[in-house]
């Protein structure tokens, strides 16, 4: 389980996160919502280790990982699918997937079948260069690569941004499936409320670097959610 | 106007620096010329020339600090300007030899006779006159710097790429000057000088005068640098160093500023080279060696870039260490020592000696004022 306790994050003198606290459990999807610039990506950067927090702690599976750098966190099962996909354009789809082997032990280095059953298009495009794929296909590749890492915590930053509706459905199905495995804790950052509402077990809305509204799916008050997200 | 500039340029440490150099400029000749050789404080003449050499290096370091410490231009080829100034002076000194040379030709230097040249090349004309040679000392490096800078800065070449092409510049010049048919003495260079402005180059008094002039040159260059740095022009230079794009965005023609300060720096380096040559008695193409230019930058880094006084200190300290280490059992290891020094300074003392001192005093000052403010709540900007 992930336990984020009152973290602050600064870029130089500018504060991007203010006392953010969050929990994520395996088999549950935690949605982090909010407009542009509220700090959603900064939060994921903090969780992935890309940017150090200036205060607070991050505990994962009982261990304090606050000081750990990204490769160490990857080895502990934390996978990050960043905004903008960031797949390697000059590597083939297969090679891109294989980059997910990096934190794994020698005998674990295989691409799980799940990846191809969730995203069949990847199977048919194994030999194509990553840069030749459409935005939606790249997004599927990015998620597939994260899955190759055998993650126990999956961080997704706006996976639907700029993607066509049919592929959004595929991605939604994939996230549902991963949740049903009950082994992976999923944190989904989104601006697309309807998509998040369908998948989320827990919701947190951010504003100016802090969480201003937090609720589980059962207690969710639609009006409050909309108000927190609108202008 | 000048008084205003002087007041602006001379703060406490600058005045202190000038006083120290002036004291040295006077003290060294006194210790050499007035004291008997048996006295404990007597300074041997060879040391006077050695110190003179250090003074020229200090001037070169000042010229590098001006563009590197205050404008962020890292020239790894400044030795070229130093050497060009040196060659200009060397050509004047060669013309003074006249019939006292081995081949006793009144016009042609020995090496040209040896090469079977019948006539003095055109580019040697005029060097028998000191004013002309003095002009060339400043003009040749200055012109080269101007043309080089014009192309480099206008093409927006910066950072490491600029440093690399300055290395290429000095390397190319070295190769050229090594060639015998270049007409500058080939790999032997210019040497065996007899006199300068009528005075015997080797005489004790001449050596002392040259030393004092070198110190004076340092003082004047230091003042000039201070005047530039404390002017609005200097503030623009620092702005360019810290945020070039922003400075351009404010409407300043960054290329023109860089070109001006780079040319000025080259002229200073040329003068340093010109004062160097009569004191060491020789100028040869190895002065163009890329390694020399890099060493000069190390002097500035050790002393503290962006402090001016640090450049002078660094030049003296490192060259003293070099003299110390290369005349003894540790001689073969000098290059390792230099490398280790560079690494140590970069890792442990990145601000250099003077820079670190400035930093400590600033820290102590801030801590004192923070302690004074203790107990008062942090003032909001809007009051």
């Amino acid at each position, binding site marked *: 389980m992930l336990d984020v306790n009152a973290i602050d994050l600064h870029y130089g003198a500018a504060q991007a996160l203010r006392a953010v606290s969050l929990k994520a459990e395996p088999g549950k999807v935690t949605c982090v919502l909010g407009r542009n610039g509220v700090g959603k990506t900064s939060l994921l950067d903090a969780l992935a280790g890309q940017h150090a927090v200036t205060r607070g702690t991050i505990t994962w599976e009982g261990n304090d990982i606050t000081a750990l750098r990204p490769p160490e966190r990857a080895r502990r099962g934390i996978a990050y699918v960043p905004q903008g996909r960031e797949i390697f354009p000059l590597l083939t789809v297969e090679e891109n997937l294989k980059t997910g082997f990096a934190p794994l032990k020698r005998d674990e280095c295989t691409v799980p079948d799940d990846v191809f059953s969730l995203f069949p298009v990847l199977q048919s495009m194994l030999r194509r260069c990553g840069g030749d794929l459409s935005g939606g296909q790249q997004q599927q590749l990015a998620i597939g690569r994260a899955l190759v890492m055998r993650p126990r915590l999956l961080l997704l930053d706006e996976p639907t941004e700029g993607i066509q509706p049919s592929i959004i459905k595929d991605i939604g199905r994939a996230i549902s499936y991963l949740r049903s495995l009950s082994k992976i804790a999923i944190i989904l950052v989104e*601006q697309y409320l309807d998509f998040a509402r369908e998948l989320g077990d827990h919701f947190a809305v951010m504003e100016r670097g802090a969480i201003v509204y937090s609720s589980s799916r059962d207690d969710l008050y639609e009006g409050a959610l909309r108000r927190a997200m609108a202008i | 106007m000048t008084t205003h500039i002087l007041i602006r340029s001379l703060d406490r440490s600058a005045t202190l620096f000038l006083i120290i150099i002036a004291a040295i400029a006077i003290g060294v000749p006194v210790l050499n010329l007035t004291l008997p050789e048996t006295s404990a404080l007597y300074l041997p003449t060879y040391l006077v020339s050695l110190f003179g050499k250090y003074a020229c290096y200090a001037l070169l370091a000042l010229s590098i600090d001006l563009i590197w410490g205050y404008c962020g231009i890292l020239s790894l080829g400044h030795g070229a300007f130093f050497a060009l100034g040196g060659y200009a002076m060397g050509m004047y000194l060669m013309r003074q030899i006249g019939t006292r040379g081995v081949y006793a030709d009144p016009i042609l230097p020995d090496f040209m006779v040896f090469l079977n040249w019948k006539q003095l090349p055109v580019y040697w004309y005029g060097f028998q006159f000191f004013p002309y040679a003095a002009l060339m000392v400043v003009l040749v490096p200055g012109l080269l710097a101007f043309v080089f800078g014009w192309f480099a800065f206008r093409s927006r070449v910066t950072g490491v790429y600029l440093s690399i092409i300055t290395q290429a510049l000095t390397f190319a010049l070295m190769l050229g000057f090594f060639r015998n048919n270049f007409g500058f003495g080939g790999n032997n260079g210019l040497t065996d000088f007899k006199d300068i402005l009528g005075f015997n180059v080797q005489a004790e008094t001449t050596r002392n005068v040259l030393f004092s002039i070198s110190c004076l040159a340092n003082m004047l260059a230091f003042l000039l640098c201070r005047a530039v740095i404390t002017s609005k022009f200097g503030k*623009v230079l620092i702005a360019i160093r810290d945020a070039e794009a922003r*400075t351009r965005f*404010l409407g300043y023609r960054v290329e023109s500023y860089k070109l001006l300060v780079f040319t000025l720096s080259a002229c200073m380096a040329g003068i340093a080279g010109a004062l160097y040559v009569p004191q060491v008695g020789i100028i040869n193409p190895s002065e163009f060696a890329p390694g020399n230019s890099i060493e000069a930058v190390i002097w500035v880094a050790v002393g503290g870039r962006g402090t001016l006084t640090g450049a002078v200190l660094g030049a003296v300290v490192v060259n003293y260490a070099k003299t110390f280490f290369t005349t003894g059992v540790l001689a073969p290891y000098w290059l390792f020592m230099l490398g280790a020094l560079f690494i140590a300074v970069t890792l442990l003392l990145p601000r250099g000696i003077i820079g670190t001192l400035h930093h400590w005093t600033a820290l102590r000052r801030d801590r004192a004022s923070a302690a004074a403010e203790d107990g008062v709540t942090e003032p909001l900007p809007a009051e």
Partner: protein
Amino acid sequence: MAALTSSLLYLDGVTVSFDGFKALNNLSFAIEAGEMRAIIGPNGAGKTTMMDVVTGKTRPDLGDVMFDGQYNLTRLDETEIAELGIGRKFQKPTVFDSHTVFDNLELALKSNRSPRATLWWRESATERRRIDQILEVIRLTAVSDRLAGGLSHGQKQWLEIGMLLAQDPKLLLVDEPVAGMTDVETRQTAELLKEINREHTVVVVEHDMAFVRDLGVKVTCLHEGSVLAEGTIDQVSTNERVVEVYLGR
């Protein structure tokens, strides 16, 4: 050519495409002289591209941008547009850290920028007064001798706004000024901009809705490269299309 419009800034049918993607799509709106306008909009709405077009960084494929009724900005380059009096403040403060607050403003002050002029420059009483004036507006008089690198994030933003003011612009384009500021600083920035608005026309792009509310000015909401709604913040925030767009597709 007679003035086409009385507006200070008039965007007319501006379209900008990047590789088939329309960043600005037939965008039209006007800013009156002396006005302060807030531009909001979700991700990808085209706010930054719009400012790039106005300042001359990007040339539009279609449409015109008229300034002061007589200048077509789409035909001028960045320097010419800056000289016309259009100043832009970027999101990230880029002040000169090793210079004092005062020197930062001095460098930004409208003056002869040539190397020769700066070599011989001496501070005049008028210039000193102007800088002191600006220091007061941006509330940094107390720290005028401090190095800019030691300022708080909010103070750096204000200094940068001050540097923009020093160039005497007619129109200020301010990009996300309160990103990363504390609540107190955010409120002070709203006050600061209102004061500046007394003598300059200001266009502010922001995500922070509390700040936009504080400004209390007309709001233009962009979406996918064109204007979605315009009005007061209350009108815009209750506009159904706007609500939909901010909540998703």
